[in-house]
Structure formats: C-alpha cells, structure tokens
C-alpha cells in the first residue's frame, strides 16, 4: 500500500494541490480561510466554555490558558474529522476518473488526508507562534510532535480508506460518520480536561483511543498534563490497527467497487 502511494507520489501531489487550491479558487483571501476558520472556532469555544460555563484546565484560572489547551486538542481533531468526512465521498466524487483509468484507488483518500493535514500544519505554525509570543512554548518535548503526526496520519488514512470503500456500497456510511463524529467530540476530552471525568464516564474516555491522541498533543505543546504511557501506546496500536483494517477492506472490495460506482 505504501509502495503504491510512493509510486504515485506525483499524482498525489497533483491531487493535493488540486484539492487545496480548488477549495479557495475564486475567493479573495484564499488559503487564509484555512487559518481563519480554526481561529474563529477556537474563539467561539473559548467564549462559550471558559467564560459562560466557567470551564478550566488545571488550576490556572485564566481563560487564555483554556484557549491554549483547547487549541492543542482541537487542531488534530479537526484534521481527523475533516479528512474522514470528506474521504467518505472521495470515490463517489471521482467516479468519472476511477471508471476510465487504471486508477490507484488509495491515492484519493490519501490526498484528502494529506490536504487536511496541511491545514493542521498551518494551524500548528500559528499556534506555535502564539506560544512563543506569550512565552508559553515548551520546547522539551516538541520534537515528539512529528512522531504524533505520523501516527495520526497512519490512523486517519486507515479510517479514511475504510469509510471511502464502504460508502460506495452503502451511502448511509457518510451519514453515520457525521453522527459518529458529533458523538465522539463529546466523549473525547477536547473542551474539558480528562480528569474532570469520573466513574463510568472515565472508563469510556479511556477506551476512546482519540482521548490519548489529544492528551499526547497537549503534552508535547504545553508540557502537561502527563498522559498515561499505556494510553498513548493503546492509541498507537489503534492507529496501526486502523491502517491494517483499511488495507484489508480495500483489498476485499477493490474489484467490485468500480462496478458499483
């Protein structure tokens, strides 16, 4: 699978530029929308959760601190959500290409995953600049972020391929995914700290691999709270598992998929 992606690297590059540029073609501020969007969302969540609902991370009472913790988790979350939801329709939207050519199917979800990642990267740059400006940047573990990127992409890609294939057979998948993400947003500690949860809900959070993903991101950017090593390992296992599932689903459905488009 990786060999296919590597072999088609130029095609992927074209698909990604087409996707990124296609989204902003004809708009005046173009790619700045991809920075503006998360910033607006961040502001909204910060206002609602920290000032209205008085939610806090750690023992720091300032709303600014809340914004930082929120943003560290929101960036990977948004990239994941966007990639999965958009790639669920990627085979259907490109049916005209798939039916006409010997088309390396995996390049389509991959290019969607990659273009969402580019937006995450842009957001990350802005985030790091803000952290440096307010002297809250923690350099000790920052190098680890690249490792997190890799695991995140592997996971996102695996899930993206799975839903892209299944959605060709059952178009309900795309709808289910939308609902699922809405649900997952609340059972992942994004707008609240993980230690707020107790009892059964805590178990539920721990079972969710994405909990450990956002905790890991918070840790490498802000230096705390220290995530559980087993939890992070669980997430890494999950990401490779998702990759294998994606590979399995694609190899099982590849032959029939084209004829159903």
């Amino acid at each position, binding site marked *: 699978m990786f060999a296919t992606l590597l072999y088609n690297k*130029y095609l992927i590059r074209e698909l990604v530029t087409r996707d990124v540029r296609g989204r902003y073609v004809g708009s005046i501020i173009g790619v700045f929308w991809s920075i503006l969007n998360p910033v607006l969302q961040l502001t909204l969540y910060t206002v609602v959760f920290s000032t209205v609902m008085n939610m806090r991370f750690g023992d720091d009472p300032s709303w600014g601190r809340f914004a930082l913790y929120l943003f560290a988790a929101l960036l990977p979350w948004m990239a994941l959500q966007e990639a999965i939801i958009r790639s669920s329709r990627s085979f259907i939207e490109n049916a005209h290409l798939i*039916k*006409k*050519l010997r*088309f390396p199917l995996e390049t389509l979800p991959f290019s969607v995953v990659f273009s969402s990642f580019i937006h995450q990267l842009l957001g990350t740059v802005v985030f790091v600049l803000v952290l440096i400006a307010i002297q809250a940047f923690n350099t000790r573990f920052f190098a680890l972020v690249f490792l997190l990127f890799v695991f995140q992409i592997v996971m996102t890609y695996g899930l993206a391929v799975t839903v892209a294939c299944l959605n060709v057979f059952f178009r309900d998948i795309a709808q289910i995914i939308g609902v699922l993400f809405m649900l997952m947003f609340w059972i992942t500690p994004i707008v609240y700290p993980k230690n707020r949860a107790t009892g059964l809900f805590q178990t539920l959070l721990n079972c969710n691999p994405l909990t450990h993903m956002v905790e890991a991101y918070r840790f490498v950017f802000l230096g705390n709270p220290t995530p559980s090593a087993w939890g992070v390992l669980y997430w890494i296992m999950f990401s490779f598992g998702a990759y294998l599932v994606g590979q399995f689903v694609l190899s099982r459905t590849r032959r029939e998929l084209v004829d159903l488009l």
Partner: protein
Amino acid sequence: MKPAVRVSQLSKVYKLYWGPRSLFKEMVLRVPSHQQFWALKEISFEVSEGEAFGIIGENGAGKTTLLQILAGATFPTSGSANVQGKASALLELTAGFHPDFTGRENIYFSGALAGLSRSQIQESESEIIAFSELEEFIDKPVKTYSSGMHVRLGFALATGFDPSILVIDEALAVGDQRFQKKCTDRILNFKRKGCTILFCSHNLYQVKTLCERAIWLKKGRIAAQGVAQEVVDRYTDYVREDESKSSPVSSPAVESDRDSKRQICWIEKTVLSDAEHRPRSEFESGDPLQVDIWCYFGPGFEGIPAVAVALVRNDGVCVYTASSNTAGDSLRQESLHHYHARVVFPETPLLSGRYYLNVVATDQEKLQAYDIVERAQTFTVSSTDRGIGLVRLHHYWIEPK
C-alpha cells in the same frame, strides 16, 4: 512476435441490485439478491504489435466494458486480458478536467493520472499545447473554453504522451473539419510509427480504412472476427436487415390465402442461377445473374402476362426493377395458363452485401400487381471494392487539361 493485446475467454458479469437494501442483504446477510447481466461472454482475440484493430457493435454490445477492462479500470469476472505496454485511454477525453484550473494545470493533472512524472509531462507539454492550438488560452481556466477547445485539448492530451497502445473510443469527430483532419492524420501517423491501435467507432468507413482486423460484438459475444472489411460488411448487413425487419413487410401469399382472395394469377417458382444455369446464392461483384420465374395466369386474367423482378438490398433499398414487357414479349407459354420467364443480368456490379429478389406478376400496363413474392430468393455478393454505395459505377479519372 508477442501480441500487444491478448484477451482470452474474457467474461464480465455485472450484478444488478434492486437497491441499497438488496445490496445490504447480499453483502451482510449473504442472501443472493441480484440479477446477473453478462456484459461480455467468452471473448477471445489477439492484437499483434503495430496492428490497428477495430471494435464495432451496437450500443450496449459491450464495447465500452471491453475497453474499460483493457484500460485496467475494471476487472474481468473470468478469463484474462493482457495488455503489453502503456495503454493510453481515449475513453472520455475530457473526463479529468477541473473547470476552475487552467489548461496547463489540467495537462499536468492528466499526465499524473496517466502515471507520468513531472519531468515526463514537461517533455510533452509544449507539443500538446501546439497541437491543441490553444497557445493563447492555455493559462486560462478550462471553464472559459468553448466545447471545441475542450475536446481539442482532450485529444492532444490523449495522444500527447506517446502511448504504445492507443485506445480510441468515438474520438475522431473532434472540433471543426480542419481539426478533424489533423486528428486523423495524427492517428495515421501513430499507425505508421508502429503503434498498436484499438479503434472503437460507429464510423464504419473509418474502421474499414484504418483497421486491418476487427471484431463485431453483439450482446457481449463476438459475432464476427477477422479482416476488418469483411467484419464491417457483415455488421452493416445485419444492421440493415434489422432496420428493414422493424418496418412491416407483407408476407408472401400462401395457397389458402389465394383461394380466399380469389386470386387469379400467382408466382409458382423462382430460381436464381449463374450464367451456366447452375442455381446459386453467392456471387462475386460483376458476375452475371439469371432469374427464372414460373407463373400461373388463370382463366380470369385478361391482357398480356408480364413479370417484374426487383433487385433489393437487405435494408429495403431497391437497386433496380426489370419488367418483362419493356424487353419485348419474352414469356414462354408452357401450357394454357402456365408461363416461364427468364431475365439475365449480364453484369451486376453490386457492392458487397446481402440482397434479395422481389418477384411480381403483372400485366402489360403494370398498374396492377396480381401477386408479389417478397424475398423470393436471397443472395450475397462479395466484393473487394472499398467503395461506398450500392453499385460500382464504371468510371475513370482523367487529368483536366
């Protein structure tokens, strides 16, 4: 020499589901709930390197499915299709275009789709632009192009990356006539260079002239395979017959019918033979043809008996009608009411195809047909002439002074 394309026992079955629920039933509950549709059934052929190979057939005969399989877009259900080298698919010329991007950007994207690297595309880029004649517009978004410009870029792209196998599906009718000429020239050039061509078209004349061999697909099976001209001829025969079948044809009168209609004259027998009086149904173009007609002119008949023989191509186009009394009174009276007529066509320069004879019993006024026998005899004519039309007219070319 290794064949460029080898297709053996290729079949393709499409599963037709009634809806997402029946698909769910089959995929998850493993209850078969689909209809099978055989798009292709046991197709075998080979195309050798440098050969131009035609694929003809009606809409829905499986041509597109076959090309899709050869292009590697979809998979055969059974059998195999092997393609040597890079097959550039002219399946749908403008399929990959993004309307918001410029012509140049779309060239790069299409190249990437064809599996090329950036440097390989750069090599062909200027040539593609020159061929499409879009120099002024190449950096404008494709959505601003006219439909003619669209297909010009498409054709330039599909032929621009030097494929070793060119797959052409209905692509020659591109742009204005001048550009069409440019396209056919380019395809001929590919042929001269030794490029293998798979040519799928409804333009049978082009298939006849361009291709050495061809197959005719009919409902997913090979109906004919061989020399392109013969296959095309057989196919056109079939199409013509099919067309004339759909228009109502009065069936020849039968005995009982005759009594009820109180018919007074009828055709008894028609024999078609060659110059040596041997009955035949296969002729070479230009062969002599002889028709013998026995008919009955009963007691109620008044006037001079006459017969007419119409030579009709199988699509119902009448080539010529010969009537007996214009050639003089040539019916021989064999008994009181029985007559025998013989007409000789010393030269029949018909083009290849299937023909039949309609025979009519009439009188010297030729206003009333007492009996008409349609398709009294059918025969085929084969010809090496590639001309188009009905008959070969004698002609010569001279240099004007």
